[in-house]
């Protein structure tokens, strides 16, 4: 079965729609959203409603730190993120906020774990920025494969028994088989705000039979998404960075 895994939509309707359409064309049968439905982008309501409908029809939807901040604290955020959260709070109704609040932090299926940030402490929103971070996450779970987002840059870490974790940067859409003898941490790029110098929306497809993951990219109408952010008078950097993917 093919599972589309998407993370960090961040209220970017155009990017989210483009990824869903792209995934549908690949014959995807299930969806997992790894959190951060909102924050930064100008269409939080649209993304939340769509995620809710997807959940109703069987999709897994997880909580991200921006989703949590809607009803919680923004103390750990930078000024742009905070401004976007404050703006977003005014755009979501009670039911939408409750939906976000009730989202789970992790989801486990067999030897696969889904989480927004990483596995060692899903409440702490730790960023996986190097092999040591990745190793801590992989050692914290008995799941062979962990999927996460949060850092907005695609990366694949692997860990063999008795060794140290090592990174690989996915550089094509070729599915990479994940052998059962080691641990893997598959970090997804962002749907709504890529930061790996590639402005195309990023997501992944997991082929459960072949145990293989493909990191995929699709172009979307950046102009439109950026214009909405400008119209909403959100910080200018939030629209500008979409064009360059950083």
């Amino acid at each position, binding site marked *: 079965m093919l599972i589309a895994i998407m993370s960090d939509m961040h209220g970017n309707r155009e990017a989210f729609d483009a990824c869903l359409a792209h995934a549908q064309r690949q014959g995807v049968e299930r969806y997992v959203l790894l959190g951060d439905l909102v924050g930064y982008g100008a269409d939080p309501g649209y993304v939340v409603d769509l995620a809710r409908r997807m959940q109703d029809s069987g999709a897994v939807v997880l909580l991200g730190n921006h989703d949590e901040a809607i009803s919680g604290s923004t103390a750990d955020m930078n000024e742009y993120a905070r401004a976007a959260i404050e703006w977003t709070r005014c755009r979501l109704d009670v039911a939408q906020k409750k939906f976000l609040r009730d989202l789970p932090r992790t989801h486990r299926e067999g030897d696969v774990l889904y989480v927004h940030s990483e596995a060692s402490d899903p409440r702490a929103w730790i960023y996986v920025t190097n092999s040591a971070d990745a190793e801590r996450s992989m050692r914290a779970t008995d799941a062979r494969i962990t999927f996460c987002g949060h850092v907005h840059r695609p990366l694949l870490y*692997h860990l*063999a028994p*008795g060794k140290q974790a090592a990174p*690989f940067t996915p550089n094509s859409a*070729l599915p*990479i*088989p994940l*052998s*059962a003898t080691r641990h893997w941490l598959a970090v997804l790029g962002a749907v709504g705000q890529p930061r790996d110098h590639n402005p195309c929306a990023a997501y992944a497809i997991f082929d459960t039979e072949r145990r293989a993951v493909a990191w995929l990219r699709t172009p979307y109408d950046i102009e439109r998404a950026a214009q909405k952010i400008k119209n909403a008078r959100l910080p200018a950097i939030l629209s500008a960075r979409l064009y360059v993917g950083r």
Partner: protein
Amino acid sequence: MAREPLATGATVDGFLIGEKLHSGGMAALWEVTRSDIDYPIVLKAPQIQDGDDATAIVSFEMEQMILPQLTGVHAPRCVAVGDLARQPYIVMEYVPGHSLLPLLDKAPLPIADIADLGAKCAIALDAIHRQHVIHLDIKPSNVLIRDSGEAVLIDFGLSHHELMPDLLAEEFRLPIGTGPYISPEQVRGVRSDPRSDLFSLGVMLYHFATGQRPFGYPRTKSALRARLWRDPVPPRAIRADTPEWLQEIILRCLESDPGLRHPTAAQLAFDLQNPGEAPITARGRKTQRDSLATMLRRRWRLHSTPARAALPIAEQIEAAPIVMAAVDLGDDLTTPSDVLRETVARILRALPGARLACVNVLRLNRIGANYVLDEQGRNIHVQRLVELREWARPLGLPEGQATFHVLESPDTAGALIDYARVNRVDHAILGARARSPLLRLVGSVASRVIAEAPCTVTLVRAPDLSVADPATAADGASDSWKNG
């Protein structure tokens, strides 16, 4: 690792295990069958005892990743891989035929055989390099020759796939490869350069030519490092009848700096298939190893230059294509060979690593063979070669970048298409005549080449000045009005 031992008569995931064919250091091979597969297949399983060498496990893991990605005749077709945690195996096509290993005992081999085997191996390497894979363990026992003649590369356990994680690079600091064949950059830990395979192929060709190993059989890391600065004894010093062109090719493969080797496996195959066409440098003529001073200079330079990761394979291949210019040496003045030359010049300016094959077809009558001499008794073939060289002279190419070929055939298009296929041409450039009584005929040659050549084809056409454009026509009209 294996939960149940494999044995004749047992069934694994639908595969019925037959005879054990081979039991080697790291793996065993079994003959297997499955009702839905109508070609011979084998099962390869790792032979790993408890607490055994970790390289063997990771290497099997790598082969399980890489082999299913490869297509084409130059690697065994992969049928299935077995879960490493449960029952590790690879089921693949059984390739009948022999490996090149027994040939080592027969070396020195005839020169023509060496060029032929070398070209077959280089073509196979080109095929896997174009699929993002570097073999990194090329040696006679890992090359089989199919009954149909193509080389098949086996054992991808030490290979590198540039679109996948390299589990070996991450986990092992020691050089990974086979002592006599390992390239200098592999010794330095670089596993991303396709030209490493050209080095190993060079070691094979050297052995086939001389009966000796160019760098011996080093067993320590320091002995392994010697090839970084010490050049081998030139084959001509061991076997006097080694042609200069073959020594040129072999020693170029064995250059310590990958940048001095052939830029691609396809260009190496081209030189092996066209013996004597490429120019001979001092490398091809020398009969002694480099002087102590040269060797020390190389060794010194090595200390100041760290090993560098190579460019992506596709970039290396795209930067060094084989370009064929089909040059029409017609006698009439409408020949568009000038326009063709300008187009070729533009392409070579953009891709200085390209090889240019200037090709002309000498059409033969299907009957009668007195074509060799013209009315004046001159050798037409030689005359055509001279004209081809003259055609290319204004390009001002460095020696070695262009080669010249006159093909003799009754079928112009067929000859060009065959040439492009055999020589793995990436880009064929042909001229079309704007106006000519032969337009239809030439047109059919170009359209057949475009339809059938296994490469990109560019058709160059000189502007047809006989067709008046509307502005000229209007001027003409105003002129006549004025005159009237």
